[in-house]
């Protein structure tokens, strides 16, 4: 899975460039995210603006990343589409992750 990464105000913003975060992509996604976490990134914005499908494996991988960050870390979501948001809602993961409309809003939320 191709993921674009950039650092803004000491916050890592990652943008998956593929449309689907599903069971066949989840392991690769999680591996890249854990690499960034292990390199010391503690505050991460996951920008899902280009992703139009996430399944429970993809969602589980995102949850796993938050667990890997542990106390003192933060992983927030931005740019999520309404359909994908419905997965977060029906699994109640919308109560776990802070969700922002854009990476800029997420950065403001994390630094404000």
């Amino acid at each position, binding site marked *: 899975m191709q993921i674009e990464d950039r650092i803004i105000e000491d916050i890592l913003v990652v943008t998956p460039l593929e449309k*689907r975060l*599903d*069971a*066949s992509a989840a392991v690769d996604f999680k591996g890249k995210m854990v690499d960034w976490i292990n390199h010391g990134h503690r505050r991460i914005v996951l920008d899902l603006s280009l992703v*139009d*499908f996430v*399944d*429970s*494996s993809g*969602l*589980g*991988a995102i*949850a*796993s990343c*938050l*667990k890997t960050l*542990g106390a003192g870390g933060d992983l927030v979501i931005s740019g999520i589409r*309404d*359909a*994908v948001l*419905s*997965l977060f809602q*029906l*699994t*109640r*993961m919308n*109560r*776990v992750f802070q969700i922002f409309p854009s990476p800029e809003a997420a950065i403001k939320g994390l630094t404000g």
Partner: protein
Amino acid sequence: MTNRPLDPQAAVSSIKLLIGSRLANVRLLGLAVHAFCTYLNFGETEAYQVQLALVEAVTNVIRYAYDGQPGQEVEVTVTLQPQCLSFQVKDTGRSLPALKPKTLEFDPRDVDHLPEGGMGLVIMHHVMDRVEYHRDGETNLLKMDKYFTPRQPPP
């Protein structure tokens, strides 16, 4: 392999889709089902969720019935009745425990114990109106129905 044209005006239309047991193939089924839902004028979120239910079902087959082994087949029959979209997922892997509806019980504040799996069944039961699973000889059959109100099909 089309049995009959997918025509909402027809009493029953169906199509069989066959994939090899690799997770990378599941998205082909998902994309096909999303196209059916779009054709039926499902809203974007509903089309996504119906696709999601099928993707979860087939992913479970590959992961658990076939233990992730490639070289097996998963057959999905999509049937359209005037007010019902049905899926039958067929495999010849090992039988799975009865698919009982589950609920996700976790404390959203307790990050250390967030679920990373076990959500597929919840999704299937939440999205679809009927989910049934049984074994017939050496074959596992999962049937799922989604009822809908017919709308004017696109020209």
